[in-house]
């Protein structure tokens, strides 16, 4: 299984008793890089940027995850992207930063089910249990850089660059079947 990424459609891609993998609908994504006084950015967003790596914040359908010391990823409904870009452009002169639209760069897989966390142990060297519900991390899955969002004990989202997505999905698919067979 190594389907072209363009063949993915929203909805369930794999489903077994262990977990269900689906492709999330298209969404706006922005990469924010900034340092120093973050208050102006908080004001532009209408919510405080999360302060420790892995923490999340959200406002009006926009979710923010801190990935690194000066790096956040923002997801937002597509129409909101331009508004956020405009609000940040306003403060650029006084508070230089980088805000880059990466909406087209990635796809998101939704991974849910009783064994969703176990499924991730097939490819993720990080201890999944250290990512608490409501947090997220940039990590690797089967050697591919991904961003994991843990939305609940048994529900995750995984952001993957487009061209790596088929490879990642193939292992998720294998894993869903392997775990289902194991629990019989």
């Amino acid at each position: 299984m190594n389907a072209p990424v363009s063949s993915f459609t929203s909805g369930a891609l794999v489903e077994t008793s262990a977990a269900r993998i689906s492709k999330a609908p298209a969404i706006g994504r922005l990469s924010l890089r900034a340092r120093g006084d973050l208050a102006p950015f908080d004001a532009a967003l209408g919510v405080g940027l999360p302060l420790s790596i892995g923490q999340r914040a959200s406002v009006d359908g926009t979710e923010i995850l801190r990935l690194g010391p000066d790096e956040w990823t923002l997801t937002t409904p597509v129409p909101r992207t331009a508004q956020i870009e405009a609000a940040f452009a306003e403060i650029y002169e006084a508070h230089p930063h980088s805000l880059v639209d990466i909406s087209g760069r990635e796809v998101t897989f939704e991974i849910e089910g009783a064994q969703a966390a176990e499924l991730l142990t097939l490819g993720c060297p990080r201890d999944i249990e250290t990512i608490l519900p409501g947090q997220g991390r940039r990590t690797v899955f089967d050697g591919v850089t991904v961003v994991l969002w843990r939305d609940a004990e048994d529900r995750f989202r995984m952001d993957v660059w487009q061209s790596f997505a088929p490879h990642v999905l193939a292992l998720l698919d294998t894993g869903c079947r392997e775990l289902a067979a194991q629990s019989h």
Partner: protein
Amino acid sequence: MSQYRVSGRGRVDTSRPVTFTFDGKRFTGAQGDTVASALLANGVHLMGRSFKYHRPRGAVAAGSEEPNALIGTRRGPGRFEPNTRATVQEIWNGLETNSQNKYPSLKFDVGAVNDAAYMLFSAGFYYKTFMWPKNFWHKVYEPFIRAAAGLGVSPTEEDPDHYASRYLHCDVLIVGAGPTGIAAARAAAVDGLKVVLVDENAEAGGTLLSEPQAQIDGRPAWDWLAAELEALKAAGVKIMTRTTAIGYYHQNMIGMVEKLTDHLPELPEDTPRERMWRVRAKQVVLAQGALEKPLVFHGNDRPGVMLAGSAQTYLNRYGVLVGKRPVIVTSHDSAWFAAFDLQDAGAQVQAIVDLREGVHEALLSEARARGITVKLSHTATATSGRLRVSSLRVNPVSGGSVGAGEEIRCDAVLMSGGWTPSLHLFSHTKGSLAWDDDRTTFLPKDTPEDCLIAGASRGLWGVEAVLKDGAEKGREVAELLGKTPAQVAYSVAGDRTGTGISMKELPTDRSPGKAKAFVDYQNDVTAKDLRLAVREGMRSIEHVKRYTTNGMATDQGKMSNINGLNIAADALGKKQPQVGLTTFRPPYTPTSFGAFAGYHRGDHFEVTRKTQIDAWAEENGAVFEPVSQWRRAWYFPKAGEDMDAAVARECAATRKSVGIFDASTLGKIEVVGPDAVEFMNRMYTNPWTKLGVGKCRYGLLLGDDGYIRDDGVIGRLGQDKFHVTTTTGGAARVMNMMEDYLQTEWPDLNVWLTSTTEQWSTVALNGPNAAKLLAPLVEGVELTEETFPHMSCVECTVAGMPARLFRVSFTGEIGFEVNVPAPMGRQLWETLWEAGQQYGITAYGTETMHVLRAEKGYIIVGQDTDGTVTPYDAGMGWAVGKKKPDFVGMRGLARPDLRAKNRKQLVGLLTEDQSKLEEGAQIVFDPKQPVPMTMVGHVTSSYDTGTTGRPIALALVEGGHEKLGETVYIPMPDRTIAAKITSTIFVDPENARLKI
């Protein structure tokens, strides 16, 4: 019931018979048997032939340390595995097994002539025997060694099984589920600690499975075991059986292989055969136990000669008597208990022969009570029997002299040379060992890892002692993890404690030089070989090991290392620690390639990155080539076309009208921030300050050594914003290099990098009609020479899509690169394809791209450069900013070597006979010079189709820039080709074709 099965003994289920074949013959065993225990139950000891001498061999052990009983197993097509240990492989209905290393049959093997010629095959025989005559090497010696080397036969069919892998994080990992490990798990499983208990055997219990007589806390050992395992599960301990910890790596990373299906008659769907676990444990307790040592005497390898402890295991765990008239020969108390167990199960023990002068009175009285003959101060000097031992020759030893021999008739010889603590994983941690003179063995000392070692693997003996030690170590790790575990006490009745002495080869009244007294069964190394190695000058055990191959077989010297060391130390007249111990290396037991490969096979072998336009290319018949992790359309053949014809057509169509090319794989980096331009000035050789917004420039990136690393066109989209492109293969490397400089050298710069390679799908249009095709689709800019000249860029709309439009050319034609958000790539491509039909638009692949760029002398980094080419060598000095204060590689470029006149420089080559050169071919100035000739360069790029009407090539040639017009020579196997040095530009040197 089979002949040797003992009713009421063992843990196998004789009410569930299992039928399998060995060498085509059907055998019946019981559910729970291994191949070895089932064959022994049928009275079969002969299971294989040895590696070097093809001597008949039987199982000598009962576990994973088995060196002899290696078999091939088969489960239908593709599912064949050589060198499986019969002592580990569980039987199931229909299992096919075969002996190895025999021809024509196991019972009659012609290779056994090696045994008669054993004097030839002494230590170091490879180095001696095959030295002369020299011309024998290729025809005789090497084929012989190759035929003889290795055991078993490699599988020839593709393996249809799946292999898996997982990561596992835990607080405590305990290796070995014997009494030590169980007690450790019990103590550590407190207060929510995540404890994993792992064992290579099919069931947990370790030595308790072989010692049912013990009473733990008033309960029979097996009842206690069952209850304790239940209690552990209830406490949340994860118990993993058939799982071998194969290696201990840095920072408490332990590799484990779980065998999931080898014991099953039916293969369940979607279940892998094996799974590699990568475990990261906060604390590790090693409880691997101890392995019994053989005694070294003439004929100690005959089928029927086995370890006493293993005989005890076959009886108590599998309900099998390995012989009805066994004789025991030992230097350790433990074998006495094996004798008692066998006698009690109906065997007639012929004698207990002990090397020691005295043993504990309790043992003597137990032997007396059973009527067993005891021979103290006796040695074993020979065995007889052809395919099975039939007698043991024993002699009294008194004051160092060996008396007259006496034959004892028997059908099995059960030996024990004492026990070696299993230090394999401990040694993987770089743990240090200390020699224990009393026990004549190495014991564990310090380890840099968060690791404790417990029980028999640190030299303790007896169930009560190891339970106590396991519990202590379990408590200790729990305390290290901040918990307060409870004290647990164990009392054991019927415990078999004991001691012993360690021997070198046993004393004999015969010539030791002729004794076949085996130390390493699997590699056929004898005591004589080890002594010979010392006589021939080997001083370190590492040299002795390599010279004799002692301990180098797949069993990794589990049985042979200490015996080998004792003998080598004796021969050297030194203490064992001065001679040293060979290094233990992972894996602990042989591990399949499948387990290491895991999921990475077939389609999933490696990431194959595809662009959004890849599917279109596939639908339109593209042939693909891999470019780093990407697969790219190579060329688009039409019916009947080969590659040359397709590429010639694609080249011509692009130069004549318009070609379309998927350039999405180009690396892209968004550089944003007030210091963006300063950053670009420092990274690239070119000056960027004066580049206007909306303009592009070709950028050259060097390493700090001054050599070309990458290149690409870079557009300035805003005062503080650059759109950098890199080569396809260099994208990640360049990004990392930039981040590295930014974070370590220039943290003061206010600039950030974002990879946008996959944000954009990039479609390149090239050709005289490119602008005409594109113009009607573009909003926001007019595509004329004045408004949007060559090397311009703009954010605009193309076919209704938000786009970044670049006017650049990698072909020498009018060229555009249209970037749209990645998911829109295919839509853009199809729109341009439709609109281009009126111009006869032609899709081209990477090969045509290569040809067209070569005709213009545009380099490809990594093809025309090889990491030793400077911008000046490549004829690109124009790209180096002369007035810049600094850039990466500036200092390197100033080195005298890099400014030398006669460096290899990039030039064009045109062959005199119009033939195509071979890429990589070496170049000489004088073809008549004597061999070896002085090579002065090589061909880097060469094409024979294209638009110039003749083959062209690029090459690196010494001092080439000064040699335009001169002739060089390319010697090939069949002829020498003459070629003229030219400029690298073969088409349109005036760049007239770039103009709209």
